[in-house]
C-alpha cells in the first residue's frame, strides 16, 4: 500500500486527536479574534430593543443538556438583555430533559440581574404534549400551566398580568435543538395566534431555518455558538460563547486542512492508478 493510500485510510482516531487538540489549545490560550455581527442575530436583538418596558417576552428553552454548549450561552444572553430592558419574562421548556437546566439558567440570570420571581419573571416548567402545549397556551395560558415550576398558581402572578394566552405575548423566542422547536413554534404558535417570533438553534440546524427567516416567518435567528457569541457582543457581556469562538475557528480550519489533504492524496493516488493502468496496457 502506497503512502497516499495509507493516508487516505488513516485511522480515524488520529483525526479525532487533531480535532481534540484544535479545540483544547485555543480554550487554554484564547486569541480573541473580532466577531462580525450578522443581520439575523441583529434581528432578534433589535426587536427586543424596540420593546417598551413591561412588555411580555416569552422564552422557550427547547433543548436538552446535549445542546447545552451552544444554546445555554444563547439563553443567558437573551435573558440578560430582556431583564436589562425590564421586560416581563415568561420562560418554559417543551423538552422534559431540559427542565432542570432551564430552571437553573433562568434563576441564575434573574438573581444576577436582581429580578424577583413571580413579579419580573416566571418559569413555567415543562408540560407534556410537545406541540399540543403550544396550542393549549394559544387558547389559555393558565389552562396549559395552572402552576409554575415551583408549584405556585400562575393565575394572579403579577408578571402575567394582562396575559391570557399567546396572543398577549409581545415577543417570543424559541431556542430549539430539534422538535418541538422553532418550526413548531411557528406552525402551531405564531401562525395561529399572531405574535412576533424569533429563533435560536444549534449550528447544525441553522441552515435549515433560513427559509423561515427569509420569508419573514421568524424575524431573527441566533445560529449555534457563533450566533451566541454575536449576541454576547451586542449586549456587551462577553461570555462562554465568545471564548469558544477561537476553538471553533481552529476546528473549522483543521477540517478544511484535512479536506484539502484528503483531496491531494485522492488525486495523487488516482493519477498513480492511471499511470499504472497505462503502463499495464
Amino acid at each position, binding site marked *: 500500500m502506497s503512502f497516499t493510500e495509507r493516508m487516505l485510510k488513516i485511522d480515524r482516531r488520529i483525526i479525532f486527536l487533531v480535532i481534540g487538540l484544535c479545540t483544547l489549545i485555543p480554550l487554554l490560550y484564547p486569541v480573541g479574534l473580532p466577531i462580525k455581527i450578522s443581520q439575523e442575530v441583529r434581528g432578534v436583538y433589535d426587536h427586543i430593543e424596540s420593546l417598551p418596558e413591561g412588555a411580555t417576552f416569552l422564552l422557550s428553552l427547547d433543548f436538552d443538556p446535549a445542546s447545552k454548549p451552544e444554546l445555554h450561552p444563547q439563553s443567558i444572553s437573551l435573558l440578560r438583555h430582556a431583564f436589562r430592558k425590564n421586560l416581563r419574562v415568561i420562560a418554559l421548556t417543551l423538552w422534559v430533559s431540559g427542565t432542570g437546566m432551564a430552571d437553573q439558567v433562568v434563576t441564575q440570570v434573574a438573581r444576577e440581574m436582581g429580578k424577583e420571581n413571580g413579579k419580573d419573571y416566571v418559569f413555567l416548567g415543562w408540560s407534556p404534549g410537545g406541540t399540543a402545549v403550544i396550542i393549549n397556551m394559544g387558547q389559555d395560558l393558565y389552562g396549559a400551566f395552572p402552576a409554575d415550576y415551583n408549584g405556585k398558581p400562575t393565575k394572579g402572578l403579577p408578571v402575567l398580568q394582562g396575559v391570557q394566552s399567546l396572543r398577549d405575548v409581545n415577543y417570543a423566542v424559541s431556542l430549539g*435543538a430539534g422538535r418541538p422547536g422553532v418550526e413548531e413554534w411557528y406552525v402551531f404558535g405564531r401562525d395561529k395566534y399572531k405574535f412576533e417570533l424569533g429563533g435560536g438553534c444549534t449550528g447544525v440546524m441553522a441552515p435549515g431555518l433560513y427559509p423561515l427567516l427569509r420569508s419573514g416567518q421568524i424575524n431573527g435567528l441566533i445560529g449555534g455558538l457563533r450566533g451566541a457569541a454575536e449576541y454576547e457582543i451586542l449586549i456587551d457581556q462577553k461570555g462562554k460563547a465568545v471564548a469558544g469562538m477561537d476553538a471553533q475557528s481552529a476546528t473549522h480550519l483543521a477540517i478544511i486542512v484535512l479536506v484539502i489533504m484528503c483531496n491531494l492524496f485522492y488525486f495523487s493516488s488516482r493519477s498513480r492508478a492511471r499511470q499504472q493502468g497505462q503502463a499495464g496496457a
Partner: protein
Amino acid sequence: MRVKREKLNVKREQARSAFRISLLVAIVLCLSGLPVFAQTDAQTKRPLSLPQNLRVFDTPSDGGGSLTVLWSPAPDESATSKYQVLLSEGATVSDPASMKVVAEFPGNQRYVHESKWPWWTKPTTGDQHQFTLKNGKGVELKNGNVYSITVAAVLNEDRVMATPVQATPEPNWINWNQMNNLLLALLFGGIVFYAISTARKREIFLRRIPGLDAVDEAIGRATELGKPILYMTGAHDMSDPSTIAAAVILGRVAKRTAAYETDLLVPHREPITMAVCQEITKQAYLEAGKPDLYKEDSNFFITSDQFSYTAAVDGIMLRKKPAANFYMGHYFAEALLLTETGASTGAIQIAGTDADHQLPFFVTTCDYTLIGEELYAASAYLSREPVQVGTLRGQDIGKALILGVIGVGTVLATFGVMFDSQWPKLFLDCFRDVK
C-alpha cells in the same frame, strides 16, 4: 482737490443708493412675509376634519373578541396629526369624552393596504384607514356584547370626534381568509385522484431509485454473511408522514428478510411506532410464508431520549455488526453519530429522509440516500400499485404547477422592475394572496 471732492461725492452717492436698495429689499421682504405668516396662522386655526365614513363591524373570519374600524382619510392628515380609537361598552354613549382611548397613532398610518387581508376579503379600498380592536392588551371585548366605538382626529390640543358607531364582536364559523388554502388543497387532492384513475388505466413510468434497488443487495449480503439487518424509523412519532413512510418500507424489507431468513432488528424511539411496526413485521412474515421465523422482540423500544437512543444503537452496531443499516424517517443531530458508526463497522447503509438539514451527513456517510419525497415515493416504487404510482404522478403535476407559477412570478417581477411598470404588481399581489 477737485478730484478728491468728486470722489467723495461719488462715495456718498453710492452709500445713498446702497441704503435705498437695502430699504427696498427690507420692505419687499416684509411685504412678502406677511402673507406667509398670515397663511400659517390661518392654517393652525383651520378646524380639524372629522373622521368621515366611520364603519365598525365584527372582524370577519375570526374566533371572536375583535372589531374592525374603518374610516376615510382626511385631506389634512399628516405625521404630526393623530388618530385616536375610543371605546365604551353599551349601545348608547352619554358623553363621548368619557370614552376610553384604546389606541393612538400618527395620522399617516394604519391603512387597509398595510393590513394582511387577501383581496377577496378586503372590506374596502386600500386607501381607507383601518384599525382592528382585539381582546387583550388593555382591551376587553366580550362576544355578544354591544360596544360603541368612535375615532377622533387630534392635532396639538384640538380633538374632533366622529359620531360613535355600535358593533358586536361574534365568533365566526368559517375563516374566509384561508379559503385559498382549502381551494389549493382540494385542487391538489383532485389532481391526485385523477392521476390515480389514470394510473389504473395505463402504466406510468417511474424513474430508477438506486437506493431502493439496493435493498435486495443489502439483504442478500446480510444473508451471505449471516449477520442481522438494522432498521430505524426515525425520531418522529406515527403522526408524522416520514415515520409512516418508514413503517411502510419496513413492511417490504421485513418480507424480504423473512424470505431470506435473515435476522431483523428494529430499535424504536416511540412506543406507538413500535407497536405499529410489530404488526407490520408480523404481517410481512406471514405474507412471506415464514410466520414461525417472526420474533416478537425484533421490534423493541429503547428510549425516547435522542442521545441515549443513539448511544444504545451505536452499541448494537458495534456488538452485533449488522451487515446492512437502514435509516428511514426523520433524524436530527443523531444522524451522523449513527451513520458514521455504521460506516466504521463496514455495513451497507441506505438512508431515506425528509430532514433536509441532515441530508449532507447521510449523503457523505451512506451508500444510498433517498432525498426528500423519494422517501414517500419508496412505497410506490417497491409495490408498483396503481394507487401509489398515481399519487406520485399527482405530486409531479402539483410540482409542475408550483414551478409554473414561480416562473411566471419571477418574469413578472423582473419585468416590473426593468420597465418600472405597476401592472405586474397586480398579478404578483394576486399570487401572494392565493399562495
